[in-house]
């Protein structure tokens, strides 16, 4: 069995938890996130013939009340960086998070998932920044927790990147 520890990072309320809710196996309630600071879910992903189990550490997004516990990133094989398309600041936060991760645990595979693609008309993201990031080699996907669009793809892409 191949398993990978995968973290989910992003600002508070960008929809990390909702993004994966209908796609993962879970036994813990969301309360864990606000108390212990992390909630653990599981997602099986098939890449080619191989099945990989992603153990998702849904880490509480940093806000005014709670700091992110960077310890939870230890040993992660990759991460999903989640931003909210309707809030520009969340992408900026994602950029700073990526920098921080690189500093804390090194350059590990990640995918930037920009949530709320169903509300694309309300997006306030700077397309320039997006393409700049893409140019830097970032894998960027648009997804919607509401419609489920792009979610499976995000996991697949990350898995492929992790398996190299």
């Amino acid at each position, binding site marked *: *069995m191949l*398993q990978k520890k995968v973290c989910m990072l992003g600002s508070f309320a960008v929809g990390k938890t909702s993004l994966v809710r209908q796609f993962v196996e*879970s036994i*813990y309630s969301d309360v864990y996130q606000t108390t*212990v600071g992390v909630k653990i879910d599981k997602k099986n992903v098939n890449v080619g013939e191989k099945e990989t189990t992603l153990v998702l550490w849904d880490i509480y997004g940093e806000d005014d009340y709670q700091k992110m*516990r960077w310890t939870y990133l230890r*040993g992660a*094989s990759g991460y999903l960086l989640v931003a909210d398309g309707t809030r520009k600041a969340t992408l900026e936060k994602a950029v700073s998070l990526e920098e921080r991760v690189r500093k804390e645990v090194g350059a590990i595979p990640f995918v930037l998932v920009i949530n709320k693609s169903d509300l694309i008309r309300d997006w306030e993201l700077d397309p320039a920044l997006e393409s700049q990031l893409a140019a830097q080699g970032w894998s960027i996907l648009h997804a919607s927790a509401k419609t489920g669009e792009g979610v499976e793809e995000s996991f697949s892409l990350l898995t492929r990147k992790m398996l190299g």
Partner: protein
Amino acid sequence: MGSAPRHSRDPLEFRPKMAETSPTRPVPEPDDPPLEPDAQAYLELRQLILAPEQEALERLHQRVDDPASRTEDVGSVVAEAIQLRRKQGGDEALSVALAPTIETALRESVRKDPGTLADALFPVMGPAIRRSILETLRSFLESFNQVLDQSLSVKGMKWRLEALRTGRSFTEVALLHSLVFRVEQVFLIHKKTGLPIGHAVASAVAMQDPSLVSGMLSAIQDFVRDSFHTSPGQGINRMNLGDLDVWVEEGPYAILACVIRGIAPRDLRDRMAEALENVHREYSARLDQFDGDTAPFTRVHEELSRCLEHRYKDDSKHKSFGFVYATAAVVFLLVAGWLGWRAVQYARWERLVSTLREQPGFVVTSFGREGGRFVVRGMRDALAADPAQLINSSDVNPADGEFHWGGYYSLDDGIVEQRAKAILSPPSTAVLTVNSGVLHVSGAASANWVKELQSKALLVPGVHSVELSPELNPGRLAFNQAKTEIESAVVKFPVASAALSPSESLALRKLAEKIQSLLQAADSLHQSASLEILGHTDSTGAEAVNLNLSQRRADRVSWELGQLGVPERSLRARGVGTTNPLRTEDNEENRQFNRSATFRVSAPVP
């Protein structure tokens, strides 16, 4: 081998320079001074002939001179060289030579990072230390277990006593001793990633996804470590939720977590540590490089399964409980029976004691058990009923008790009556009764006895006064006695004479005293008494003569009595002739009795 002098005159001195351009073919520089043609030819010839050797020599020089290639050469043979050296038996010298270097290296390694060496030694040190501690403990435990086993039959009872002594519930004590537990799940979790490397689960246990549980467990470990800033290597080693325990053992790369229901024995920890060490020993490198692939960890499951221990109460313990219950029941019945028997015995003795209390002449001052025996203390009048008889007629076993009687005079009327009878020895005609200390005497008794009674009765304990019935009045008795004596007296006369013989006169003198005392007695009784003197004759002779004779005989006695001081007014003489004979005259003796005078006392009935 030093480097060749650079400015030698030897043509070969070009070598270093040539080496800079071409390692094989030295070509003169254009600005070098031109050589002479012979010399040129010689050089070319020499080159033609010696070139291959020269090149080989050149390469050799280079290898020998260059430290890098020298290292390379030695490196490729050093292992074989050491092996060869060992085969040659130079082991010791080699060890001696290497020892300081290795020591320095180890010291340096520890100085730089103690963790590296600690991690490397972890699988070795743990067992070594534990084994030595275990050996010490085992010998102690073995003897302890032996003691426990030997007392197996009374174990349950002991636990009960212990529960009583310590104030803990019996269940708690029994559980502490029997250690009922089950390891339900075992997780081997990679420390860094929190991913499960292995998982073992006991049969029929509802389990959650090991990946999720492992992740959360390590997240919680991180959370606690983060929150309380503990040093690395320190973390939760036990979590407890009711009867569910999670024990955690931590190794350098992985942690082992056991989910236990019940109370596990401490040595499970040792088993956990052992399993963890075995895994580390076997997969040390793989654990360090773990990338989420559990395939290589083939033996982990076997190792984890060994921790799936369980222990239930075995049957022998149930038996011992059964034995205890049976024993308790028997003991209870015995105690209840004994208590019941004691109560019955006590009741019987109590009945006896109350009988004794009611008995005249007994005073029970105390009654109770002393040293398992019934003891009755009190006082008994010598005249009271025989206690032995009372006891024998009761339903107690005399052997179960003892009696201590002190002597005393009972004031009980019955006893006092007995006592009075014993002391006063009344004639059978007398009747003695005691009522509230008053001795009543009635019936017939002699005046003497009554006199004695009057002087002695008050000395009888319990008698404080005497009451005589009227017939026993001393005056009356004296009167009656005198009357009887007087009336039984016969004054005999010779045939046809009214003269008294001297002996009859003497008898009459005594009679006169009696008459005097009779009259006195009558006086004391305030009564008047008189004496009738009857004159008799035998039947011979004429009636008229006889009547006269009898009158004379009566008169004669009356006169004599008067002479002896008996007042005449109390006397009346009457001749009755033959009308009132004393005896039937069938012989002379009887006839003589009829020639007499007799007396009749007349007194009003009192």
